[in-house]
């Protein structure tokens, strides 16, 4: 995928609406040809703004955006040839489904017969053959979504932008559409840039994810890397579930460190992700599914500094897995997640327990300010 030059390059792009705060700040981002890139971030982090600058509806206040090597600074939206799917779909209510999909072709003066054939093909592609004569209002949410996708694809743009296209759908339909979009992407080999604030959506669909926070990209990585090796406390917190422990470092060596947990005498060991001064405040992140749980005194082969003691407070059965809530002294409750096949090994509620993990799964970040 890295062979050709990127289809889009953001070079030092900045955007401010009010002249005071930068909604997008010094953004450098290369979008590779053919990839499915997701912009993920909390509300207000600048995802939509980034997308709008790329589509041409907002002008950057600094930096440059290049599309296939050409600067977009003075190119109006209608010349960019970028397909876009809006959050509310923006299907034209006064046109039929077929007219909606035919719109980008008719403004390009495609001959009537060709246009009809291409609309037919696009309808087929999103499994809506036979719906051409309906009005958008006569379609379900999922169907409208597909029409919007078909309309953005029908003129064969090289780049398609989607701003939370599944936000209005219920969970089941969402998951189905995620798979369909993914399939379409693989089949058509277009570049897709997808905005969402749903991390599980980002993880299932993307080739790469860019996590936005306060107008900056915190990390740009594949889903697996992003999940397993978050590079900041923010990313660790934002993606996946986390047990967070506050503390301060006591000693560091070889990327390892010893941490004293706040308000307690307990010390644990962890893997340093960011450079931290000795004695600096840190956040420790432990994924619930990476932690094992035993009755106190029954742990086998735990490494020093890789365990914590507490009291089991609650067990929640969730079908495919079990969650245990453990009270630690001096810290917030700790969650442990075990597959259902190990559920029988979990101690009873009220028992004194010990939790243990592998040292590489205990990741230590500088504390967020």
């Amino acid at each position, binding site marked *: 995928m890295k062979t050709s030059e990127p289809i889009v390059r953001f070079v030092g792009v900045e955007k401010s609406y009010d002249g005071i705060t930068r909604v997008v700040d010094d953004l450098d981002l290369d979008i590779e040809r053919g990839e499915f890139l997701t912009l993920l971030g909390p509300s207000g982090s600048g995802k939509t703004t980034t997308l709008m600058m790329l589509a041409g509806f907002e002008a950057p206040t600094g930096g440059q955006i290049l599309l296939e090597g050409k600067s977009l600074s003075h190119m109006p939206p*209608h010349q960019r040839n970028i397909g*876009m799917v*809006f959050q509310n779909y923006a299907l034209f209510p006064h046109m039929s489904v077929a007219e909606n999909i035919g719109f980008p072709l008719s403004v390009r003066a495609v001959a009537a017969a060709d246009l009809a054939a291409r609309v037919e093909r696009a309808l087929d592609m999103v499994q809506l053959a036979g719906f051409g004569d309906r009005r958008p209002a006569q379609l379900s949410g999922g169907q409208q979504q597909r029409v919007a996708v078909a*309309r953005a694809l029908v003129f064969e743009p090289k780049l398609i932008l989607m701003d939370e296209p599944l936000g209005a759908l219920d969970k089941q339909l969402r998951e189905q559409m995620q798979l369909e979009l993914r399939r379409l992407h693989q089949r058509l080999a277009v570049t897709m840039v997808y905005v969402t604030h749903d991390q599980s959506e980002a993880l299932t669909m993307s080739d790469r994810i860019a996590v936005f926070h306060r107008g900056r990209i915190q990390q740009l990585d594949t889903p697996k890397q992003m999940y397993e090796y978050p590079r900041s406390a923010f990313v660790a917190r934002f993606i996946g579930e986390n047990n967070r422990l506050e503390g301060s470092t006591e000693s560091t060596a070889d990327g390892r460190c010893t941490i004293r947990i706040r308000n307690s005498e307990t010390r644990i060991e962890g893997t340093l992700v960011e450079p931290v001064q000795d004695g600096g405040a840190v956040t420790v992140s432990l994924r619930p599914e990476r932690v094992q749980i035993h009755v106190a005194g029954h742990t086998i082969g735990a490494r020093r500094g890789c365990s914590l003691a507490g009291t089991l407070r609650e067990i929640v059965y969730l079908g495919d897995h079990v969650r245990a809530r453990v009270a630690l002294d001096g810290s917030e409750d700790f969650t442990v997640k075990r597959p259902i096949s190990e559920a029988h090994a979990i101690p009873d509620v009220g028992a004194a327990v010990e939790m243990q993990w592998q040292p590489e799964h205990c990741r230590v970040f500088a504390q967020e300010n």
Partner: protein
Amino acid sequence: MLTGAAAAGHAALASVDDDAITLRRALRKSRRREQWRAAALVLPLFVFLAACFVVPIGAMLARGVIDTDVARILPTVTAALKSWNGSGLPAESAYQALIADIRAARGAGTLASAATRLNYDEPGFRTLLFATGRQLPDELTAPARETLIGIDPKWGERDTWAAMRRAGGPVTDFYLLAALDLQRDADNSITGAPPEQRVFRDVLGRTLWISAMVTLICLLLGYPVAYVIAAQPPGRAGVLLFLVLLPFWTSLLVRTVAWVVLLQKEGVLNSLFMSLGLVHEPLKMIYNRFAVYVAMVHVLLPFMVLPLYSVMRGIPPSYVRAASSLGAKPFTAFRRVFVPQTLAGIGAGCLMVFIQALGYYITPALVGGAEDQMISYFIAFYASRTVNWGMAAALSIMLLTATLLLYAVYNRMVGVDRMRLG
């Protein structure tokens, strides 16, 4: 021959049908209950409207077709003329009846009402009746017909009697026909009014034309205004909308008179143009069609802007953005995506402006010339100046019919349920 399975299948089908019918009936029943409940809620308003709106206006409009004056005041001759076949002159008995009726009416002092009504149809009838009344001898010495023709030869003309018969009521199409420049001749067939009396077709045409032009100008001026306001952030849009509505704070009369001040010969505009040396003699800007358009557009513009604004406000910017991301040039996106979505607003605005313009009275009366008066001017003229209620009502019926026709056309084309007024 049916096999057992097929027969069972048929039975099953039939029972499905039965089921569907029962279901449909239940649905209709539950709907009806809802409808009754809704009807009960609007009942008070309905009664109010009926008492304060339908009844008085209905009574007023009825005067356009009810015609009882002559039958009331000259009853026997009216009855006698019912048997007249319209050819030749009426029978002697009709003449006798007329003499008796005129005597009775003179005694009761009611002859004037009947004379007025007959005079509408046949100019000179009033004089004829009163002169005849005065000259009637106390004792008839000759047959009634000879006596009357002796007093005025007009009593020997068929037209005179035909006019009298036409006025016999109890209903008449006389006023309605007159409002369309039509009349009935002695043979009771419809003909055009004499050319010098034809005015109302012109007036009606002019009324429609002025209203259409005002509507068009309002649309051309109002559309961009509404567009700009709708594109503002809510706070500023509120201020701008307030400015649009500001004229409503002063009375219509004041606003119209203000135009007189501005446009008249020694008015503000002419003084300005003269002092700037743009013109050497005052422009004629008032008491003509120009002034009517200017003043009416000024007054009616808010009624165009409001519904347009309300519709435009509801169109999210993402539609036009979507259009341009799909490759439409700004104007194409505007024309093919934005404008069609404002059709309901255009329809509502045009309907409101046009219908109001149709009934305009004060503004053309104050700033227009003789050739710019609209139908309401004539309604007012007949109602208050000459107290010809029949004619006033007939013209009102014309106006109302035009309005309703228009409404029906709009409903057919756009659908009133889609109308958004603001």
